[in-house]
């Protein structure tokens, strides 16, 4: 198995990107991270549209971390698109957001989110979350096989 199991992180806040990257490094997670910065990019990446069409450089992720408050398409819209996709819907998708509003939480689960995580203020808590995600979603959980047969219409 030559392909690396990448994690797609959909996050627009540059500070959070640095902190998430650092937490993954500190937790010694071996999976590489791919960052996209808005909802449209997330859909382009997952659907293999330019500039993400090269699956060697931009492999399908084994796990998605999704912020809800994003420029352009929102996280919930990305989730709606993803979980309606015939193949990609299998990719475990964890919401990672600062919103604890019950309508966001409920909507995310309704759309098929596999988990809902709150961004903590304390970086130690973030490290703890990343360690838990690694232990459960990357090391314990058995991942589905994903072979996209076709691209969804634009």
């Amino acid at each position, binding site marked *: 198995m030559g392909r690396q199991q990448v994690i797609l992180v959909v996050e627009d*806040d540059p*500070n*959070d990107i*640095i*902190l998430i990257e*650092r937490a993954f490094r500190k937790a010694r997670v071996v999976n590489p991270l791919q960052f996209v910065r808005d909802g449209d990019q997330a859909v382009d990446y997952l659907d293999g549209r330019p500039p993400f069409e090269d699956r060697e450089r931009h492999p399908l992720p084994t796990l998605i971390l999704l912020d809800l408050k994003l420029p352009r398409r929102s996280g919930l819209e990305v989730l709606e698109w993803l979980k309606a996709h015939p193949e990609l819907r299998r990719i475990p998708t964890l919401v990672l957001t600062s919103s604890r509003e019950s309508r966001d939480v409920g909507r995310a689960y309704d759309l098929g989110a596999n988990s809902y995580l709150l961004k903590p203020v304390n970086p130690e808590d973030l490290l703890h979350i990343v360690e838990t995600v690694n232990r459960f979603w990357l090391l314990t959980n058995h991942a589905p096989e994903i072979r996209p047969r076709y691209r969804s219409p634009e």
Partner: protein
Amino acid sequence: MEGYGIVSRNAKGEAVRLIGVNRDITARMQAEEALRTLNTELERRVEERTAEIKAINKELEAFTYTVSHDLRAPLRAMHGMSQALIEDYADVLPPEGVEFAQRIEAAAQRMDRLIQDLLAFSRVGRKDMRPRPVSLHEAVEAVLSTLSPMFEEVGADVAIEGTLPTVIAHPSTLDQVITNLVDNACKFVEKSTAPRVRLSAETRGSRVRLWVADNGIGIEPKHQERIFRIFERLHGIETYPGTGVGLALIKKAMQHMGGDVGVESEPGKGSRFWIDLPAVSDGE
């Protein structure tokens, strides 16, 4: 016009005459009309006002949402970055540099605490606070068990005296009030003293008074009203940390539950805070 009449009949019972009065009732009709208009106008104004209040509430909710999410994002960055700086560059930073980074981190933590307290304050009274019978004893025991790690940390001796009765309150709001009171009782003590807190209750007619007595620094009489106002603090943040929201939240919560809060205290002799709540009347 308005008319009244009496039919007068002969011996056979046949109507022979009609005696009556016709009155001009224009003034009364006008008054009635005015009253109807006024009623309609009142109803319309109540509806208008209700819509306005609903709009304000919605705006307030949106504002709270912004406070809790958008304000916390930069805070997360400050906190995370300063900690990363300390952890990753402590060996190349002079001690003063490390101290500055630590101060940024502490300030970010304090601001997060403040935002959380403000959110809690704004939530009191916004949620459905329908009061119901609550066992004060069970409520206090639950709070003490939640706070027990803190008691161990500061070496506090906290206990209930006697049995506490049942009161009428909103359970989660009551929990928050008791938590704040006990937390304060353990916090405002001389550094060399181990906190000692006693909770007891007395029934005063239709009300129950819960006492929270501590062996803390006490409060001068002239400050005893001020401390219940939001953001009021009597001490520097380094002596006794806090946001100045806790007691204001208690006061607001007690008012919403039809109760009250107060304190008896002298400097150096500890404080006895009390809350009053409606008692459960017989037969309930």
